[in-house]
Each structure stands twice: as structure tokens, then as C-alpha cells.
């Protein structure tokens, strides 16, 4: 078992930089999610770790072992593919056995390992079935058992839940997380679904346009986004454009001064706060950030109500509040004050 170390990884296709100068350390036993919109380079990165794609520059190491120039079949990576890629002509047991056969394990050892793996994913009773006779969740477990049978150094999962329906998806991700913890295997999974990444990953690397925008826990990314992209990609976010005029002081486009915690160089920036961190008030509050807004609509969502408001500059902002909370008028057109605390906002580019 080992960690994975990517340093200065780059992949260029003609003029297109799929991945540029990526440094990433995946700790031993960690489950790291690469999250980003399609075309952000996350899959290319995964395929470079797997060895399907040779990096144009940089190195890939598993522990102390430099595998940059090693072809896929010599890398010892377990991979679960989008759509699973089970061998349709082989039974479940034969699928799981595949890697062991090409590794020339003897028959007894193969049989032991296959039954151990099928027990692990609870599919012993389906050993003789063919993949097309399995449900999506079962197929995924076979794919996982097959990938793990070879005792890989790293487990790679490419959009592993995308082929499942919504209900099964949440169930399978918990299951995969448990199996991953149980095996204590260094794992990387690629997804475009932030909820999925937040639910099961130890750390999330957010990628955009071939670059790693931010690496951190789900909470880091949500509470302290390092860039405008991360702020808007992870969760919902209100942005106010303006500039930093003094330490801790931000001036909006309409000339209102807001306070923020932390340090930030002077110059243009955007102030970002989450819908649930803001409050709507009838009276203008004292000592906190506040701007006058007009209520456009209120949407009742059960436990929460979502308010769509508009600033004087015409910018639309979103506020959510527990529905049980009384006191906020619901009539569109009402003039209100939107307020938030200095420590609840961050500044991004």
C-alpha cells in the first residue's frame, strides 16, 4: 500500500492543455475525489495515474516507485470504469479471476482469492452468472471485486456512480466508501457531482480548465473557497463585485463599505457569502454588513424557504432561512435589508 504522488504533471494534445502542471499528493489509504465540470482534466488525470495516458511532462509515483513510463498493465492499479466494463463473455467469477489469470497465479490460489473477493462484496451466490444478468449495483460490486482482486497499489474509480439511478447511487456510494475503508486502499475517484464527492471523499481536488483550483476537505471548499470558480461550483453562492480599499474593508460597486475577516491584497475582488449565512431583516441592522434589497420571490421548500432578492445595482442574490422562522414578509416588492457577518464571507478574485 502506498500513496500517490503527482508532480508537475502536464498533458498537452496539440494546442490543447488538458492538464497543466498539476501537483497532487494522495495520502496512503485516503479516498480523494477529483471534482470538476466535464473537460476540466479530471479524467485525463485519472488516466495518467492509471497509465492509459502518458503525461507530456512531470512524474507519477506510487510510494517511492516512479511509474511515469510504466505501461498500464505493469502498474498494478485497480480500476472501476464508468459503466463498469465487465467482460460480457465471462461469468462473475471469471471476471474477478481475470487479473489473477494473466498474473499466472495457480488455480488454487486463484479460486481462494475469487471466493474471498466475492464474499467481500457479498456476491458469492452469483458467481456463475453473466454480467448482463446482474443489476447495476451488482455489476458495480463485481467491477470493484475484480479491480481489488489483483491487490492493487491504488484504486481508481471513473464516475463510478453515473450509471446508477438516484436511489441506488446514494446506497452504492456508502457501500463503496465502507469497502474502501475496510481495504484501506489509496483511492482516487473522478466525479462531476459535488454532493457525491462531499459525501464520501476524505479530500476533494476541484479542477477547472486543466488546473487544480483547490484541494481540501468538503468543509474547506465550502467555507473557504480559494477562487471564484470553487465558490460558485461548490454549493450556491452570492457574489458582490467591488474592490478591497483597506485591510478588512471592501467597497461594492455602488460604494457601500463591507467588512470582512482575514487578509486580502488591495484591488478588485468579489465578496462571497452563502445563502444560509445571510439574513433578511426589516430594519437596517447596526454593526454588521448590510445592503438594501427588494424581495422578488419567496419559494417554500419545506424545512427551508428560499428568497430571491435584488440589490439596487440589479444583482440577484439568494437567501435561505428556516421556514419556521417568522418575521420575514413574503410579498414580492417588499424593501428589506440583507445582512451577514464579516466572518461569514470570503473574498475571491
Amino acid at each position, binding site marked *: 500500500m502506498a500513496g500517490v504522488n503527482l508532480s508537475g504533471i502536464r498533458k498537452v494534445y496539440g494546442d490543447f492543455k488538458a492538464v497543466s502542471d498539476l501537483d497532487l499528493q494522495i495520502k496512503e489509504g485516503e479516498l480523494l475525489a477529483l471534482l470538476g465540470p466535464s473537460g476540466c482534466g479530471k479524467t485525463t488525470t485519472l488516466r495518467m495515474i*492509471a*497509465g*492509459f495516458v502518458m503525461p507530456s511532462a512531470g512524474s507519477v509515483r506510487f510510494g517511492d516507485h516512479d511509474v511515469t513510463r510504466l*505501461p*498500464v*498493465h*505493469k*502498474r*498494478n*492499479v*485497480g*480500476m472501476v*470504469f*464508468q*459503466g463498469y*466494463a*465487465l*467482460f*460480457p*463473455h465471462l461469468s462473475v467469477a471469471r471476471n474477478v479471476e*481475470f*487479473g489473477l*489469470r*494473466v*498474473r499466472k497465479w495457480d488455480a488454487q490460489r486463484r479460486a481462494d482469492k475469487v471466493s474471498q473477493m466475492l464474499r467481500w462484496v457479498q456476491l458469492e451466490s452469483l458467481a456463475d452468472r453473466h454480467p448482463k444478468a446482474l443489476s447495476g449495483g451488482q455489476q458495480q460490486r463485481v467491477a470493484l471485486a*475484480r*479491480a481489488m482482486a*489483483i491487490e492493487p497499489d491504488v484504486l481508481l474509480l471513473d464516475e463510478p456512480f453515473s450509471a446508477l439511478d438516484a436511489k441506488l447511487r446514494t446506497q452504492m456510494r456508502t457501500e463503496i466508501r465502507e469497502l474502501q475503508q475496510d481495504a484501506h486502499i489509496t483511492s482516487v475517484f473522478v466525479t462531476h457531482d459535488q454532493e457525491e464527492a462531499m459525501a464520501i471523499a476524505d479530500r476533494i481536488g476541484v479542477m477547472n480548465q486543466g488546473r487544480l483550483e483547490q484541494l481540501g476537505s468538503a468543509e474547506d471548499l465550502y467555507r473557504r473557497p480559494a477562487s471564484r470558480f470553487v465558490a460558485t461550483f461548490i454549493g450556491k453562492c452570492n457574489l458582490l463585485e467591488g474592490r478591497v480599499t483597506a485591510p478588512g474593508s471592501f467597497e461594492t460597486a455602488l460604494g457601500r463599505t463591507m467588512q470582512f475577516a482575514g487578509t486580502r491584497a488591495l484591488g478588485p475582488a468579489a465578496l462571497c457569502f452563502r445563502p444560509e449565512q445571510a439574513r433578511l431583516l426589516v430594519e437596517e441592522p447596526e454593526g454588521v454588513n448590510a445592503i438594501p434589497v427588494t424581495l422578488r420571490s419567496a419559494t417554500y421548500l419545506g424545512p427551508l424557504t428560499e428568497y430571491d432578492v435584488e440589490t439596487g445595482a440589479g444583482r440577484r442574490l439568494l437567501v435561505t432561512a428556516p421556514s419556521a422562522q417568522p418575521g420575514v414578509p413574503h410579498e414580492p416588492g417588499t424593501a428589506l435589508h440583507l445582512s451577514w457577518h464579516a466572518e461569514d464571507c470570503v473574498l475571491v478574485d
Partner: protein
Amino acid sequence: MHNFNFGRLAFRSLVIAVFAFVVMPLVVIVWAAFFSDKILTFPPKGYTLSWFTRAWELRDFSQGFAMSLKVGAVATFCSLVLGVPAALAIERFPFPGRETVRQLLLAPMYVPAIVAGAAVYVYFVQVEILTEVQFAATFGGLVIAHTLVALPWTMRLVCASLATANTTSEDAARSLGANALQTFFLVTLPIIRPGIIAAAMFSFIASFSDLEKSLFLVGPGKTTLPIAIVNYLEWNLDSTIAAVATVQIFIIGAALLLSDRYVKLGKAF
């Protein structure tokens, strides 16, 4: 409520008419194979099986039949040996000029067979003049020409099954430690096996029923069945031909049915 739909009725009638148009000649030929009249007449005076035995007794037909089987089998084998690796290269490895190569290998399908047959003949003669190795009117020459007939079919069907086969299975095999050769034999080949079987069937049918390309290339005693039929038709008009054709129809029909079991033929084109 009685649901009478004129449009649907018209459509069905049209479909039935088209099918009848396609199938009727075949039915008539099979029927005529059993007429007892010496000269084909309609309606028949009686029925007999003797045309089948007569056809078999005619050396031209029995030899032609054996020749067609032999040439078909060898040409099918050659087209698979050439076509499967070619299809694999074209579908799996992006090399420059790959579309050109694909079209080149499919080209024999587009060129009128009689033209191609003449061209092959001229080519063989030229080669013979240069090297003194005879190809025209030899078994080898015939096999080469029939391989050309069969190759586009092999290419089409194998390419189609490679294109529809999910390449991630191959990626999966490689991630599990299989090298290129193991991946091909343990994963790709089993997955496209139905396509290869269908390709073999179609190649065989194409070769077995080819007339035009062989016309210039057969020699005395080395005639294929379709050419034997044409030769016979020049001087005779009796039910022997119908009997021979019936056998041919059933062989081809069986091959088609067999390939359809492996590959839904609709998907390949």
C-alpha cells in the same frame, strides 16, 4: 369499436407486395425444380425429383459445386486473415490515412464486379508476362479474386462489431495486467466473435454466388457453380437449372440464418 385505418392497410399491402416481388421468383424456381416436363412448361404435367440427380450427374455441376465450396472456403479464410487485423488496426489505432485504407479495402464492393473481374484478369496476364507465373485460370488466381469479393464483407462486419464493442473492456483488461496480445485473445476476440462468424458467412456467400468476377478467371475443369449454370443456360432450358439453383438458395439461406443468430444483421449496415 372497429378500428379501420386506410393508411395502415395501404402500407401493409405495399409491404406484402414488395415481399412478394422479392420472394416470388425464388418460390417459382424452387417449384420449377420439381416439374416433370422435359422442357420448362407451365402449368407442369407432373412432378419429379429426377432433376436433382441429373444435376449431380452432370460433371460441370458437381465439379462446379465442389469448386465453389473450395474457393469459397479458402477465400473466406484469406479474407478473415487479412480483414480481421485490418479492421482492428482501423478501429483501434488512429494512424494517418486510416480512412483511405478503410475505403480502399471496401472498394471492391463499389466497383462493378464485371469491371473488377476484367481488371483482375488483365493484371494477372501482365504479371504472367513479367514473371511467367500463371494466375488466370488457376485455383490460386480464383482464390485471389474471390478474396477481393469477400474482403469488403469481412471488413464491414468486423469493423461494425469492433465499433459497437465497448473499448473500456479492453482498457479494463489492460488495467488488470493483460498485455496487448492477451487483451486481444482474451477479451477483444471473444467479444467480436459473433461478428467474425457473420463475416465468415457473408464472405462465403459473396464468394459462393459470385459470377461476374470469376467470369474471366476460370479455366477448363476449374469452373465455379454460377458459371456452370450460365454455361448450361446458353444451350438448355430445363429444370436442371432450377434444381441447381434450389440447392444454391438453400445453402445461402442456411448461411444467412446462421449468421443472423450471431449478429443481428440490421446492425451491421
